[in-house]
């Protein structure tokens, strides 16, 4: 096994007699994915939250591919990842490496290695930067070698390109049209997730939100899978931009959510999730099931949208071009292009929000996040969430978007630790920010959750205090507020409670009830 698991290694080659030809080391190169493979091979992917994964399946299947989602990574995968790749990986690499390896190992036992290599290909995100995120594939490749699956095909997506081209061979064409479908799946996954997390903590009939969420995801999956194929590889993008196909499906979904009975007078701290991409996105053991744990602890969770990450990457691209105006040819056009795509992203995100009754929260403006973070973290330092991590925590606090921020920081994540370290200065100047940076190792759950619980206790106090202040300000009592709610549209999930200046849902509802009755 090629596992560098010792502090110090000494390798002495065997004494050999006659001179021999040296066969130099070469990196893994996937075998081509041919047109015939398209019929047989299943594209494996994963590492996101389940709604988005299911929707992406629909978006890819629309183009005739077979797909399968990897199961959510488990602690067992973490251990397998550590075992199969080089020592010292960041926790997301260990989880995702072990996740892929675990799936392939089981399938190999069932089908044999050759059949697994024929039947599956894995598509995963690469990156345009030097963070290990761009080098995850090294770990995957090493794991594959260690599993004797060197002929398994692994393809990388560049996160900064819409046109991924034809992956080696002509069978896998990740065209702009297909990738736009994937982006639309991401946007819809985000707005659905946000809606669900706003409703579930307040549902009157337990399990109703979960049921509607499952049905809704299936409905949208079908909308993506059966979407009409209009236009070519590139021109097909226009159809996505202009169609009402998805907003119609979202409105249908909204009607299901809207009928859920809720009690938003339950006082709950609102906890914003931020952090490293994988850990803030995934829902499961890799982040100690933090979303569900927070809900079980009495919080309302403000999940992290992938769309904000895309918006951030576009901002970085625009900045990079802007800095090079007058130095590089075409920089002005690139900046304008990035800004235009940012605009289209926001416009479509807002269309989808509107189709869901305006309930999903808006994306924060990148310029605003950048300005808030500027004294603490340079906006041109990329890798991870960079200055956005600082900006989001301050934005949530100052704009009363959440009572506390729970920041999920993977063990050994390079860029994330830099942002978290810089937060020390921000907290020095804003000591009232409730900020819980949790180092996630994957196998130290009690420690991380107990740390979170300490901050959550204060967040609960703040939510309660804020609720009482809202009552005092409006002259209502809990009982009279409840009386007003009985005949009010806000007793159903479809009613949007406006942000009245409080962070918590219950306090905002009190202010809304006072204003509307």
């Amino acid at each position, binding site marked *: 096994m090629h596992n560098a698991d010792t502090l110090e290694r000494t390798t002495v080659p065997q004494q050999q007699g006659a001179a021999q030809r040296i066969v130099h080391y070469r990196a893994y190169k996937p075998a081509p994915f041919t047109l015939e493979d398209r019929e047989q091979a299943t594209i494996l992917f994963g590492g996101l939250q389940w709604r988005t994964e299911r929707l992406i399946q629909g978006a890819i299947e629309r183009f005739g591919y077979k797909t399968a989602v990897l199961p959510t990574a488990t602690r067992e995968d973490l251990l397998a990842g550590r075992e199969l790749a*080089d020592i010292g990986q960041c926790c997301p690499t260990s989880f995702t490496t072990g996740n892929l390896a675990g799936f392939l190992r089981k399938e190999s036992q069932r089908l044999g290695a050759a059949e697994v290599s024929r039947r599956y290909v894995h598509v995963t995100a690469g990156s345009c930067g030097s963070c290990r995120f761009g080098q995850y594939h090294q770990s995957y490749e090493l794991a594959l070698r260690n599993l004797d699956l060197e002929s398994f095909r692994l393809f990388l997506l560049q996160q900064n390109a819409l046109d991924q081209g034809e992956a080696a061979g002509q069978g896998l064409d990740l065209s702009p049209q297909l990738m736009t479908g994937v982006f639309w799946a991401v946007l819809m996954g985000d707005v659905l997730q946000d809606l669900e997390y706003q409703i579930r903590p307040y549902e009157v009939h337990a399990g109703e939100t979960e049921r509607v969420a499952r049905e809704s995801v299936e409905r949208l999956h079908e909308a993506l899978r059966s979407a009409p194929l209009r236009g070519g590889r590139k021109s097909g993008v226009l159809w996505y931009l202009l169609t009402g196909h998805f907003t119609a499906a979202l409105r249908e979904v909204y009607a299901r959510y809207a009928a859920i009975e809720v009690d938003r007078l339950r006082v709950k701290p609102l906890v914003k999730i931020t952090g490293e991409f994988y850990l803030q996105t995934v829902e499961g053991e890799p982040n100690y099931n933090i979303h569900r744990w927070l809900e079980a602890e009495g919080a309302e969770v403000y999940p992290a949208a992938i769309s904000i990450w895309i918006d951030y990457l576009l901002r970085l691209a625009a900045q990079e071009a802007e800095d090079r105006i007058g130095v590089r040819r075409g920089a002005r056009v690139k900046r304008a292009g990035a800004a235009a795509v940012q605009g289209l992203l926001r416009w479509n995100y807002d269309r989808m929000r509107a189709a869901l009754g305006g309930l999903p929260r808006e994306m924060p403006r990148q310029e605003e996040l950048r300005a808030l973070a500027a004294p603490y973290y340079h906006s041109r330092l990329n890798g991870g969430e960079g200055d956005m991590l600082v900006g989001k925590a301050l934005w949530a606090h100052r704009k009363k978007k959440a009572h506390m921020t729970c920041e999920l920081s993977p063990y*050994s994540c390079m860029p994330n630790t830099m942002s978290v370290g810089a937060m020390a200065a*921000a907290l*020095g100047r804003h000591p009232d920010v409730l900020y819980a940076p949790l180092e996630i190792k994957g196998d130290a759950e009690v420690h991380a959750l107990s740390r979170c619980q300490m901050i959550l206790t204060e967040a609960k106090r703040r939510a309660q205090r804020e609720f009482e202040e809202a009552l005092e300000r409006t002259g209502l009592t809990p009982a009279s507020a409840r009386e007003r709610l009985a005949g009010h549209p806000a007793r159903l999930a479809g009613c949007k409670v406006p942000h009245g200046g409080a962070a918590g849902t219950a306090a905002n509802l009190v202010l809304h009830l006072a204003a509307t009755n």
Partner: protein
Amino acid sequence: MDTSAAGTETRIAHGALPARDKLRLGIPRVLNVWSTHQFWIGLFGALGLDARRIVFSSDTSDEQMREFGKGRGTVDSCYPVKCVSAHYGELLALDRHRRIDVLFSTMIYSVPSFLHGHVVDSLACPRVMAAPENIKAGFLKEGDAFAARGVRYVAPLVALGEPDMAARQLLAALAEFLPGVTRREVEAAVRAGYAALEAFAAAARRQSREILENCARLERPCLLVLARPYHMDPGIGHEIEVDLQAYGFPVLWGQYLPTDPDLLGWMFGAEVAAGQVRSGLDIADVWPSSYSANTNEILWAAKFAARMPWIAGVIRLSSYECGMDQPTYTPVQQIVERSGTLFFSFQDLDSTKPAGAVRIRVETIAHYLARDAAGIIARKRDASPPDCPLAAAPLP
């Protein structure tokens, strides 16, 4: 020593600064400053600063951290970044006639690399480039320690890997403490900086070639160190290669290997002709995600070692929690070992120099080199093309 203002004269951070030739500039001797220091010397010299007033912090040491860095950390990080707090603290603590006016700590976004044009990019590690923001926080969280010492903190972000961007990025930062500095002046100074850096690198490469020529002539082995530039810091790399040198083995650093066309043609010509690589500096065959400059250079140097007969052993140094090195452990080891070259690795280096363990390891390495080097050289030479340009070099 505490770096607060207690007991010392406090100046206002944004108050008047001395004239250029009287200005004392502090530069932390950390991270990629180890590979770019000549640029900064050249730059500030051209801008009229007195070289004697450019103060680099000391080499990293345990004592430095205990005295100047204690309580300044904000987050667990790799060891080389963690150490930066102590360097800041040391520079801020300089007193009386040695007191600095400006603490200049650049966020080096990308690095000049001899592999430029042959790789995807030449970025710095995300932790290394962002270290100043992270370390700064430790000096601001309980009050402004820079202001308290009357020191102006200047930390520009500069893409040194893009020479046409550097002047633009540095201008505003330099104007903060060099009033009246013009764009033209900065452009000229940046050119002088790059020239100084290139001259230094060329001289170092020439010396490396001379060492290799000598080894080829005498059929003698030498060692190659694969590490990041800051492992040259005795407090980071613990001078492991110095201990080996004491056994009589010449030591080369991967960053300063010769890149002369005749030599690269001899080493990589067949692979270029076969279409396996595009040039002797291409690493796509072993490391396609070639974004990071220091990583790229380590991978290329490993390839160099695998094809250079007289490099009989490779020493890999890696620091505690180095995320950039982590995915390279196996590829680097494989590149080296498949050629039959000895490979030794010292991983997770931190503040503690395990002197006893290092001594035993060094003795082991010396033993194997003494025993196997001749065979390794012979096998690698037999596998190489004839007419090595090193062997043809005239005697000095």
